[in-house]
């Protein structure tokens, strides 16, 4: 997935999650508080109802007192009329059903019987009429026995001789709230008294029932209203939340696109430039923009681009230089190889055979071999210049020419070396030098005259395989010090004698395990192959050394072989 897409999705997801969280939390908050609203409303209503009840009590209590007073007086007036009409006959009153019904009806408040009315003959203490039919005809004492709670009231009434009055009392075992009122009234011109007792609670009950019903209705209505209101609010909240979510979501899309672009655009540009660099176009310089990290990245990239550009330019230049040098070295090597003498056809003879091989470690060699005729004698030269490469090759060419030229004018090897040394050591500030072995063979006599300037001794192997070293002179290599002295020695070669000229590259060759090839191995190989031709011997030795070094040449390897055959 591209970084731009990733950034976009991350920003979008964060926006969506945030808006969802905001909406849901708002919704949950309202939902949780809905019950609180209802509870609070309920408490308020209850409190209001309580206040209302108290208010009702305060209103109803005096009203009820007034009510029974008026009612008692009204009934007393009715009874008085009936009593007068009945010519003061108590028995007529006692049997007046109409009156009894009126009394009973008067005890009702709505459908609840809240009162108790008794018409008492104060003289006989008998109850003549009573709304409780069971009490008709019984005495006040009997009534008190029936309702012991009236004992105290009875005393108070009697103390007042049933005079008009108003009493508040509590029937026995009644609750605190169960207060009853009693109104007493003496009918004029008779012994009759009317007692009207009213239970305040019963009196209030219908009113309270109405109030309670109204309260419940109102409460229900208010709760329903709150529920509707909160439901509506929740609905609005939900709509609001969804709207907010949609708005944030819609806004977050371009915002996320813009933001992800602002992050990724410089990186995308960077990537495009990297691709260009990958194709070899290093000339890039990106505009520094984006976040701090991106700016740092671009700065680093620009720096790297410049460095790479410079490096590539330098490298290209270097490669060109190397190619040029390589070409020149190849030419130099070809020239050097062309200066080495070829055996065929000039150096084939019935008297001797020659073989030679040179393997340079570098492009051009510091070793060389040479053979040439000085009149009818054969000169054999092998040399090893210090160091490697061009400087060694240059010194080698100079030495080779010098030896060849001096051979024409000098009569002995030591004289040739001495004069060559004087030439080479002249102004030799770099102290280049060469070891060199020069031998001059006379095919007529088989005589060999030789001189050694610091070079490896040559090996002589006779037909029996006996090896002797020639040239152990310990004389100065050519080029060091002027006027160094050299010596010449002479020996006579027999038929089948093999001479081996070599450079130290052979015994000093090393295996990958850093073991030296060594003179012993070299001599043994020569001895075992002495009957082969000089060329074959050269090939055998060179191949053996190459194998030993695992084809990793450490130094120039030069080998020249000579065999007297006639």
């Amino acid at each position: 997935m591209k970084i731009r897409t990733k950034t976009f999705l991350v920003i979008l997801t964060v926006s969506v999650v945030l808006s969802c969280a905001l909406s849901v939390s708002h919704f949950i908050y309202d939902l949780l508080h809905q019950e609180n609203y209802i509870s609070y409303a309920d408490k308020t209503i209850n409190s209001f109802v309580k206040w209302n009840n108290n208010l009702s009590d305060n209103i109803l209590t005096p009203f009820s007192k007034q009510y029974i007073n008026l009612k008692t007086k009204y009934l007393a007036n009715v009874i008085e009329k009936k009593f007068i009409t009945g010519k003061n006959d108590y028995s007529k009153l006692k049997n007046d059903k109409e009156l009894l019904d009126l009394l009973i009806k008067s005890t009702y408040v709505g459908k609840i019987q809240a009162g108790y009315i008794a018409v008492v003959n104060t003289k006989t203490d008998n109850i003549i009429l009573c709304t409780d039919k069971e009490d008709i005809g019984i005495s006040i004492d009997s009534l008190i026995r029936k309702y012991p709670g009236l004992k105290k009231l009875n005393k108070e009434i009697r103390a007042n001789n049933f005079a008009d009055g108003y009493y508040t009392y509590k029937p026995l075992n009644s609750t605190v709230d169960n207060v009853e009122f009693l109104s007493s009234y003496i009918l004029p011109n008779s012994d009759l008294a009317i007692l009207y007792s009213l239970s305040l609670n019963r009196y209030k009950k219908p009113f309270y029932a109405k109030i309670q019903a109204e309260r419940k209705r109102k409460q229900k209505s208010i709760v329903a209203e709150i529920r509707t209101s909160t439901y509506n609010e929740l609905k609005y909240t939900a709509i609001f939340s969804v709207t907010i979510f949609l708005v944030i979501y819609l806004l977050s899309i371009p915002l996320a696109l813009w933001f992800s672009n602002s992050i990724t655009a410089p990186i995308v540009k960077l990537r495009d430039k990297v691709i260009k660099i990958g194709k070899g176009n290093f000339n890039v310089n990106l505009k520094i923009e984006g976040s701090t990290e991106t700016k740092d990245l671009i700065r680093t990239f620009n720096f790297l681009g410049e460095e790479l550009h410079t490096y590539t330019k330098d490298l290209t230049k270097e490669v060109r230089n190397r190619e040029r040098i390589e070409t020149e070295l190849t030419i130099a090597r070809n020239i050097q190889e062309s200066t080495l003498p070829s055996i065929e056809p000039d150096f084939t003879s019935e008297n001797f055979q020659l073989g030679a091989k040179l393997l340079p470690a570098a492009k051009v060699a510091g070793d060389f071999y040479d053979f040439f005729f000085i009149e009818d004698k054969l000169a054999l030269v092998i040399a090893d210049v210090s160091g490697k490469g061009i400087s060694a090759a240059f010194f080698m060419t100079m030495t080779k020419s010098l030896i060849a030229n001096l051979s024409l004018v000098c009569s002995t090897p030591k004289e040739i070396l001495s004069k060559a040394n004087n030439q080479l050591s002249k102004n030799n500030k770099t102290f280049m030098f060469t070891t060199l072995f020069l031998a001059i063979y006379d095919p007529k006599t088989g005589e060999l005259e030789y001189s050694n300037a610091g070079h490896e001794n040559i090996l002589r192997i006779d037909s029996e395989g006996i090896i002797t070293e020639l040239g152990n002179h310990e004389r100065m290599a050519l080029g060091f010090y002027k006027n160094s002295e050299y010596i010449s020695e002479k020996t006579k070669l027999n038929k089948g004698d093999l001479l081996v000229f070599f450079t130290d590259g052979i015994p000093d060759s090393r295996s990958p395990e850093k073991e030296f090839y060594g003179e012993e191995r070299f001599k043994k190989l020569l001895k075992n192959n002495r009957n082969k031709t000089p060329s074959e011997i050269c090939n055998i030795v060179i191949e053996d050394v190459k194998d030993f070094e695992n084809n990793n040449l450490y130094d120039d390897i030069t080998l020249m072989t000579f065999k007297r055959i006639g």
Partner: protein
Amino acid sequence: MDNYITEVRDDKLTFTFQVELDTFTCMELEEGLLELVKNHNGTVVFDMSKVDFVASSFIRLCGATASAIGQENFSLFNLNKNIKKIFKKVGLTSVIKIR
């Protein structure tokens, strides 16, 4: 590893070579070594105790050192048998002090 360690005691500058002195190593150390030699007033000694092999380039370096400081002020010591043989072969034992 450094190619050599130098030590100056009194007027004697000693180079103790730490590695094989093949052609490439000699080319690498030649310039710096000759610079030190030329700036030194006194004798110069090459300690060869840790060297098993020398290329002909090292012989050239010895020649250059002897030339820069004077033959009488230059010496080599602790040479193994093979290296001593090389110096003998090229005839330098007569001009360079080998101990």
